[in-house]
């Protein structure tokens, strides 16, 4: 059942993303103020949510579960690493789409707006996590270090979340759902935006599962290698 679900994730996410793009490009109307540029709203916020919250949140949760003795397993470590790695991809796409939207809107490709800056910082934090992951160490030592790094990085997320409020910058305020639950985007645009969140969340999940499977396959090769290594080691003691 689990295997079937994960096999279907790829096609489902592909369909949803294509549907989102089709609706965003051809069905929804242009915005009164932003014109055609508004179509980026069907990609950028969803990417940002996955990069900032889903990726780091999942990594932090799995890392906490790894550090907790009762739930400690390499599965949690692999999931955390997969979430961060996929999150890096989404983060880069967030910054790129943000820049594409920012150029005609603000007149510059990049500005030191608090949310953009914090997103870039999170990207660097994630890259630091991946750099830490590549430091030679025993698997459990590496897993423990990375788990701690992920949890500490997750502390940065609330700072990002409140950055718009704290620093009152160029970045847009809430786009669709605002405090007080007043909706700012209506009709087909609103539904397409909602669909984009579902589509990119599914896409994120599929990429994490795929990345996780690669790690499992690689480590199972190592497990088999352990038995061979033990046999070779023991034979060192046998007189020739």
């Amino acid at each position, binding site marked *: 059942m689990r295997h079937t679900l994960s096999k279907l994730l790829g096609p489902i996410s592909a369909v949803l993303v294509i549907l989102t793009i089709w609706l965003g490009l051809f069905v929804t109307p242009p915005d009164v103020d932003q014109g055609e540029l508004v179509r980026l709203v069907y990609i950028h916020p969803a990417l940002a949510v996955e990069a900032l919250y889903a990726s780091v949140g999942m990594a932090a949760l799995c890392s906490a579960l790894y550090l907790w*003795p009762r739930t400690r397993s390499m599965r949690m470590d692999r999931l955390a690493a997969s979430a961060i790695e996929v999150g890096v991809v989404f983060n880069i796409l967030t910054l790129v789409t943000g820049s594409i939207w920012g150029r005609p809107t603000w007149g510059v490709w990049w500005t030191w707006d608090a949310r953009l800056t914090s997103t870039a910082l999170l990207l660097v934090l994630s890259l630091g996590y991946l750099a830490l992951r590549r430091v030679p160490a*025993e698997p459990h030592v590496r897993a423990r270090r990375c788990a701690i790094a992920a949890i500490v990085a997750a502390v940065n997320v609330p700072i990002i979340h409140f950055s718009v409020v704290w620093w009152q910058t160029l970045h847009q305020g809430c786009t669709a759902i605002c405090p007080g639950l007043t909706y700012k985007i209506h009709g087909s645009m609103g539904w397409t935006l909602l669909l984009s969140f579902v589509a990119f969340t599914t896409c994120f999940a599929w990429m994490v599962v795929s990345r996780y499977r690669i790690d499992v396959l690689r480590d199972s090769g*190592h497990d088999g290698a352990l038995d061979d*290594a*033990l046999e070779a*080691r*023991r*034979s*060192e*003691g046998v007189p020739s």
Partner: protein
Amino acid sequence: MASAIHLRSAVALTGRFPVLAGVDLDLDEGSVLVVLGANGAGKTSLLRLLAGLLALQSGTGEILGCDLSSHSRHVRRRVGLLGHDVGLYDELRPLENLTFALRAGRLDPALAAPALERTGITGRVAETPLGQLSAGQRRRVGLALLIARRPRLWLLDEPHASLDAPTRELVGELVEEAARAGATVVATSHEPELSVPMADLVATMAGGMIARMDLGGRQVFEGGD
């Protein structure tokens, strides 16, 4: 007699290499075990496993009543390890190093000076930062730390290395005293002529396992089986 060490099929890895490939070992408290073997046989790794510094990949291990897998911190508090590198602070003097270690272990810092005197670390040597001492002098400071801490399990990695003749004799005396006081001693060695006479049991390691077990000189001397 209570069990000090109980290992069954103990496997430990460094990276992905099995430094220990299934060690079986039972040792009572108050016993002295000397471990012989070629370079790379796993002697030092065995000591590190017993000290709770190397993770048990598979198998079971109990050291001084504490499970190695789940209570490695408790194991570490009860053992004393003298390695090739004594692992103290180069900028501090011998007395300062020992005082720090004793305070950390909630022991009386006044034990430091007599222990250093016992190992011949006195006068000018005692006032010299550790980093400026010779390898033999550093080892004697490491021995002094063991004397002062009096752990229940002594782990000595080639204890005679870098030591002059009088200090080598001292090692034998200290091991004997520790065993009589109820401590357990495990020592690796490349010098069987020095180490076997002080042992109850002699294990020979090869390929990350204990290949054979013999009686040591201490048992023979005392007329053991």
